[in-house]
């Protein structure tokens, strides 16, 4: 049955998904350092973004075929741009409302308008961009889904695969049980900026590497 196959595939490989998404989600949860309930809401936004990315990828594959995803130059460049966008998101989030860092007069001239509260967008956008990262478990599920030969079958397999991988994300928001600590928030912000630089480097390497 496609649902159980997808779910078991997600369960068996989901820890790798957590590894790919962790550097984005963990700094955010640390930096927000808020109550468990609020953390779960952020997680739902993040997973929602991820699901949208997966389904979009599935649709693209259905429309233009698997070969696009099999190491074509265009695909590599698209992935590189995703990494760079993710890097920008993490770096901007890292500096956003990070009052403890004095950026000097240069900081005052930088105005970022993302709506009344940037922080609400971060988990959703982070989820979308990490979803497009196409980690190895996702590619495995993708190949299986494509092999079903029909859209409804592949969507069903994908959805259950997504649920299987999401199980590993459930404990993350429990960081909120730690007494709200200013220090954790600061560390989370720094981690977001540093992880952003790392993703920027990855994207740059993919863009210039032949």
């Amino acid at each position: 049955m496609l649902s159980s196959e997808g779910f078991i595939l997600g369960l068996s490989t989901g820890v790798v998904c957590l590894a790919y998404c962790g550097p984005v989600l963990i700094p955010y949860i640390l930096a927000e350092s808020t109550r468990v309930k609020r953390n779960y809401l952020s997680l739902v936004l993040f997973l929602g973004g991820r699901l949208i990315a997966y389904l979009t990828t599935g649709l693209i594959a259905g429309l233009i075929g698997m070969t696009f995803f099999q190491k074509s130059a265009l695909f590599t460049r698209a992935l590189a741009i995703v990494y760079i966008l993710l890097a920008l998101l993490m770096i901007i989030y890292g500096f956003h409302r990070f009052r403890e860092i004095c950026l000097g007069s240069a900081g005052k001239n930088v105005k970022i308008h993302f709506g009344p509260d940037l922080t609400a967008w971060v988990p959703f956008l982070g989820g979308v961009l990490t979803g497009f990262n196409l980690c190895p478990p996702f590619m495995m599920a993708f190949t299986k889904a494509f092999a079903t030969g029909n859209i409804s079958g592949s969507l069903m397999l994908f959805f259950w695969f997504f649920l299987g991988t999401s199980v590993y994300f459930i404990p993350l928001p429990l960081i909120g049980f730690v007494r709200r600590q200013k220090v954790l928030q600061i560390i989370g912000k720094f981690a977001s900026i540093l992880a952003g630089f790392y993703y920027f480097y990855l994207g740059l390497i993919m863009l210039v590497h032949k």
Partner: protein
Amino acid sequence: MKTIRNIIIYTWAVLCMILIPVTFVRSTGFSEMLARLPFMKINPRHSGGEIGRVYEHNNLKITVNKPVFDALIGESRKGFVQVRFSPADSLPPFISDTIDFDNNGTPDLALAIDTKTGQSSLQPIDKNVLDLNISSKVKKDWVVRVNLLNPGRK
């Protein structure tokens, strides 16, 4: 109560004072004790993996390790297999051999190594064989690591 607490604290401080020289004087003994703990072994990704089989061919002792696909949890999609060529005396100028690393009776890859220049080439036979990772002289031997796809994780 305060006196007992102070005694404990000052005793602890004196013990810290003694701990530094003791750590260094007894470091060999302590490190041997630590080395006996179950996690004190080098990860196969760095050690090259467990020995699979050893055989003689062309005056060389060939050690083919078991393929390494170790990951943090479970196995990874990509790994490698290490092959070691050990001469009785000295390395021949050229090593050319086929290797069967999964012990199914059919060769999986072919290696050609110029031990003077270090130039090495790999001919994949099995579809899971990718490319050459490292090929280097190690003391008297020659060691090669070949990248593989994990057949159990495709």
